[in-house]
């Protein structure tokens, strides 16, 4: 492949440096890019060659750690999975929407983590079939079909792009949001889990599944094809069933 042609591109980055100025401002950079230059490569180039004061998060540079989310021309994207070859004209980079900005492209993800923790995202087996015995350990059984039921929803890398895409989260940060609700659903669907009832207490709140209006943009931007919109709305069905059952049981 000989597409290593180097051209010059401009990118504008929204800067915010609370140490020195109270207001954000736009800064332009000009840099050489080729066919394989990702946005993350570009930011690293800026940091090392042009302006070492630019702050952003990154780590794996292979779209699996979930660190590097930013807005690219208004759409949430992973920097390491966005290629400049796909953009004509000006490229505008901003911190992820709907999260408080700490500095430059770095946002405060604390609320996202709180929401994740709130849904009890771990296997709850209050009634284990076989108690775990370190001397003679045994796994649960789970067929490939049972695995397939939740597998897609277990692929979330916690990048938070879906929160930036979801206007309901933007309007009300108390909304548990797509990724947390998806994680809850992932465990609810796991044949080894018995914690659905406990999780329902969180899901079946106004700020749980019921704040979602199926905008669906969350699934559109998800870099891992998790389809959180589907998970959240399947969660509504579950929550509705749960309520019905609770009503009948008194």
């Amino acid at each position, binding site marked *: 492949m000989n597409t290593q042609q180097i051209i010059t591109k401009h990118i504008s980055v929204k800067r915010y440096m609370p140490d020195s100025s109270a207001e954000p401002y736009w800064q332009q950079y000009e840099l050489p890019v080729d066919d394989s230059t990702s946005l993350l490569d570009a930011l690293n180039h800026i940091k090392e060659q042009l302006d070492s004061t630019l702050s952003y998060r990154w780590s794996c540079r292979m779209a699996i750690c979930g660190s590097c989310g930013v807005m690219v021309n208004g759409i949430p994207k992973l920097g390491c999975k966005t290629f400049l070859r796909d953009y004509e004209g000006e490229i505008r980079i901003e911190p992820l929407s709907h999260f408080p900005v700490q500095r430059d492209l770095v946002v405060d993800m604390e609320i996202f983590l709180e929401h994740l923790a709130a849904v009890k995202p771990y296997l709850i087996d209050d009634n284990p079939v076989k108690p775990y015995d370190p001397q003679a350990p045994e796994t649960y059984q789970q067929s490939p079909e049972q695995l397939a039921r939740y597998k897609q929803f277990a692929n979330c890398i916690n990048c938070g792009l879906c929160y930036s895409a979801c206007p309901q989260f933007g309007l009300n940060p108390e909304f548990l949001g797509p990724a947390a609700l998806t994680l809850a659903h992932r465990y609810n669907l796991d044949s080894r889990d018995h914690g659905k009832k406990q999780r329902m207490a969180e899901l079946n*709140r106004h700020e749980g599944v019921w704040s979602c209006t199926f905008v669906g943009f969350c699934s559109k931007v998800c870099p891992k094809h998790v389809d959180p919109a589907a998970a959240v709305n399947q969660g509504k069905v579950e929550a509705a069933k749960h309520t019905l059952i609770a009503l009948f049981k008194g």
Partner: protein
Amino acid sequence: MNKHDNRHKQAIDEPLWWGLFSAGGVCFAVLLPAVILFIAVLLPLGLLPAEALSYERASALLFSVPGFLFVGAVVCLPLFHAAHRLRHGMFDISVGNDSINKKLMYGGAALLSIVALGLVVAGFLG
């Protein structure tokens, strides 16, 4: 995590509204295209056979048990569907306050539903 404990307020009404919304959504999508086409377009344009919805035939069709079900599926459920979307839409564009909007919208839908069904019953008895 304790923060969450005092917010554990369960939304027992939401499943009801969402259930009505969904059922209404199905009716809106599956039934209403035909209903609107025949009643609100073909009928007034005179494109239906004259006696198809003559006063007598219309009364007979409507003021009956199937008519009652028809009104439930074509008027009541879609009204709840609409109420739900209007309520959320108002929240989306920051109009009013959700707890009041909720009462207004679902209340309105319920009121109109009762009127509609009441009309059928009245016609049936009368």
